[in-house]
């Protein structure tokens, strides 16, 4: 009853998805790539194909590097289904999606999930006010719409993406009111232990230092070791409050861009009931996969940030490995050939991932910004606070699913994307057990909303 049959279905046209498609299509496999957007690139390379020289200059060489991959993808022969909101991937490899107001489906023999990452939630007081966006959102506005803040903006949090955005803004002539960095001495201490790996990824380190220098040269006010962050305002942002070097600070602004790292987007892998493990280094859930990216669900692989944060280049390498594996699994590539092609990819992947322990240690998000005080909203959709969740635990709710049933936490339109990690950690903290034991929301379809009318019309 599917509208189309393919060998390999790839969900997501970011670096992992594009690389998987290129590798798989080259073996002669019939490949379809489904993505929500109207052009390839995912988030990191968003709008890459229509980027002007000026935009490439502002966004920098890492972004521009995506162009070559996008061109190879366009020439690969893989079918690119744009504007497709995938709402279910089944364990039997059926893919159901919504496109142009109609429900459609395809049947694949192998599925590669390349759904990438999303911003880690940043639950501080006032984070739901209009005018608070993520640094990633600001980058998307810049990349896809050429839109930037109209007045000096505050960037707050930690992590390479935050500084990268600041650097891009400096290059674009966008005034930055302040960068409020939560990184402090303990983070540097922790990161020192991983310096060996960092030196192995010296290219990244060099880039990071150059970036910081450029920011300082741009005259951007820097506040270090920031704690007690809160956004002030009633109907919209009015100011950011925080403490830095023991001094309480208040910076008036109407826009705050928050960021404390990205985390894997695991909606599909959870919905497939694949095994996941809590990774305490990256403080997130990661699907359990083999060396090709295969889940414990036969025929379904995960590549890219969706299986653990590694960045765009690592994502492309994992995508290529998964594409080769899937092509082999459908009989288009023999095992020896697959392994031969995989070897240099694995070497490169190891090299590109070598910086991760250092970055994960240096930019580990602060407990206070992950497990907030009672009055902070955790579930944005249903306005459930951290205190509410703790009260559920006191009533015997031992995991996120009971919290959901008890207080609607996680039952809103975002289906737990913005609150899930926070809820897991709050419950673990309240119960005094590790997050692995607490578990995560049961994720069910539709992964993206389908209307009654759309579903009714399909039957």
């Amino acid at each position, binding site marked *: 009853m599917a509208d189309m049959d393919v060998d390999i279905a790839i969900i997501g046209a970011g670096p992992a998805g594009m690389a998987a498609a290129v590798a798989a299509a080259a073996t002669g496999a019939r490949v379809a790539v489904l993505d929500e957007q109207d052009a390839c690139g995912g988030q990191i390379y968003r709008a890459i194909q229509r980027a002007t020289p000026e935009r490439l200059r502002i966004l920098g060489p890492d972004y521009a590097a995506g162009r070559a991959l996008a061109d190879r993808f366009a020439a690969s022969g893989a079918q690119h289904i744009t504007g497709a909101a995938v*709402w*279910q991937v089944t364990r039997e490899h059926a893919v159901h999606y919504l496109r142009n107001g109609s429900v459609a489906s395809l049947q694949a023999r192998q599925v590669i999930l390349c759904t990438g990452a999303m911003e880690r939630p940043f639950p501080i007081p006032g984070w739901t006010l209009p005018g608070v966006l993520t640094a990633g959102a600001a980058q998307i506005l810049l990349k896809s719409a050429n839109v930037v803040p109209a007045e000096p903006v505050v960037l707050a949090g930690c992590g390479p993406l935050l500084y990268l955005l600041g650097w891009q803004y400096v290059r674009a002539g966008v005034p930055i009111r302040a960068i409020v960095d939560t990184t402090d001495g303990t983070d540097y201490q922790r990161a020192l232990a991983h310096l060996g790996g960092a030196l192995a990824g010296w290219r990244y380190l060099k880039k990071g230092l150059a970036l910081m220098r450029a920011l300082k040269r741009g005259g951007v006010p820097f506040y270090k070791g920031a704690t007690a962050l809160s956004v002030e305002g009633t109907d919209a942002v009015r100011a950011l409050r925080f403490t830095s070097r023991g001094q309480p600070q208040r910076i008036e602004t109407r826009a705050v861009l928050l960021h404390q790292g990205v985390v894997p987007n695991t909606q599909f892998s959870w919905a497939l009931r694949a095994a996941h493990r809590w990774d305490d280094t990256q403080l997130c859930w990661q699907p359990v996969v083999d060396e090709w990216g295969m889940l414990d669900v036969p025929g379904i692989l995960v590549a890219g940030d969706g299986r653990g944060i590694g960045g765009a280049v690592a994502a492309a390498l994992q995508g290529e490995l998964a594409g080769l594996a899937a092509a082999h699994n459908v009989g288009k590539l023999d095992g020896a050939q697959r392994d031969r092609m995989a070897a240099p990819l694995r070497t490169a992947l190891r090299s590109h991932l070598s910086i991760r322990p250092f970055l994960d240690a240096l930019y580990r998000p602060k407990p206070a910004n992950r497990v907030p005080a009672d009055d902070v909203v955790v579930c944005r959709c249903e306005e459930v606070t951290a205190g509410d969740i703790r009260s559920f635990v006191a009533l015997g709710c031992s995991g996120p699913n009971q919290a959901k*049933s008890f207080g609607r936490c996680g039952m809103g*339109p975002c289906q737990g994307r913005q609150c899930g990690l926070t809820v897991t950690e709050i419950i673990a903290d309240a119960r005094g057990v590790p997050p692995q034991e607490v578990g995560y929301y049961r994720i069910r379809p*539709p992964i993206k909303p389908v*209307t*009654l009318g759309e579903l*009714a019309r399909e039957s």
Partner: protein
Amino acid sequence: MKADNGADADVIVIGGGLHGTSSALHLARAGLRVTLLEADYCGRHASGVNAGGVRTLGRHVAEIPLALASRNLWHRLADLTGDDAGFVPSGQLKVAETDAELDVLRQRVAELEALGFTHETMVDTQTVRELVPAIAPHVTGAIWVREDGHALPYRAVTAFRLAAAKAGAVIHETTPAQRVEQAGTRWKVHTPRGVFHADRLVNAAGAWAGEFAAQIGEPVPVEAGGLMLMITHRVAPFVKPVLGATGRALSFKQYANGTVMIGGGLRCPADAQARHGEVDMLRLGTSAQTVTALFPHLGPLGINRAWAGVEAFMPDQIPVIGPSKAAPGVVHAFGFSAHGFELGPIVGQIVAELVTEGHASLPIDAFAVDRFNQPRGAVAGALRD
């Protein structure tokens, strides 16, 4: 509150769903030392994820006396458990869409009246439109039960669990009962956390109850199955009563927060071993069609989530409630075939009566555990009680 771990009790309840926790509460209030063993967390499966209908409408005749008695308890649930579990006395309406369907409903009401039941009443199109102004114009009439309603399943189980614990029951979650065996006049229940002993057993293990029935020597044809449900995004209030249809499966209610729960008897496979019901989203298209046929303006309403619980189905669609006929000291309460939620409060009372006095205050012969071994005539007679 007991400090011991309940390893030695008067009665062990296997299963922490609604019927298990209700039984635990009534037994504890009767003064027995109760231990409840739940494999996951109380309300994890069918009891926590069903449509929440508090419904006497449309019941199998044998269930009606129990359902009516249970409904009285729902209306005063806070007295019984300390929490009303979100019970809303919204009424239940079963609409007919054609004249033929209307005849079916009239016949049903007449049959009930002949048996002395008057809780289901016929209402005409005008009354339906007064009750549900937004309903499509082609509806021809309905059965209306004003005192029915709906409640929140997980909250209901939690209410009974907390009340049972307060009354002295010891409740162990993540403690799956694996094997039951007789030890002299007592029972032993083996779990990964150790062995529990009691004089009596209550088998309220839902989709897994057949395993224990088999272990004590009276296998029953209970099958795990799933029923698919959907919940939508919020929409402005447009319907108060719980709605059902006649010619097609539908169960439909709108909560105070504006979300709409849609069910409709759509079965799907459930894997008892994996403890999971797999939703076939495309088959839910039938539910979507029914909803949009009755409420055309809901076409643009988004579906937020679809799921299926793991439920226990009996071949005759009525539960097993009653004493074991094979082993002394065991009471069964399972197999509610996707309509056990409303019966939860009264079944716990019946179980306690059976355990403490050996007989029930309501007729339960139709639910006998050994009815599947009986000749047909005996079963038919039981249904008329």
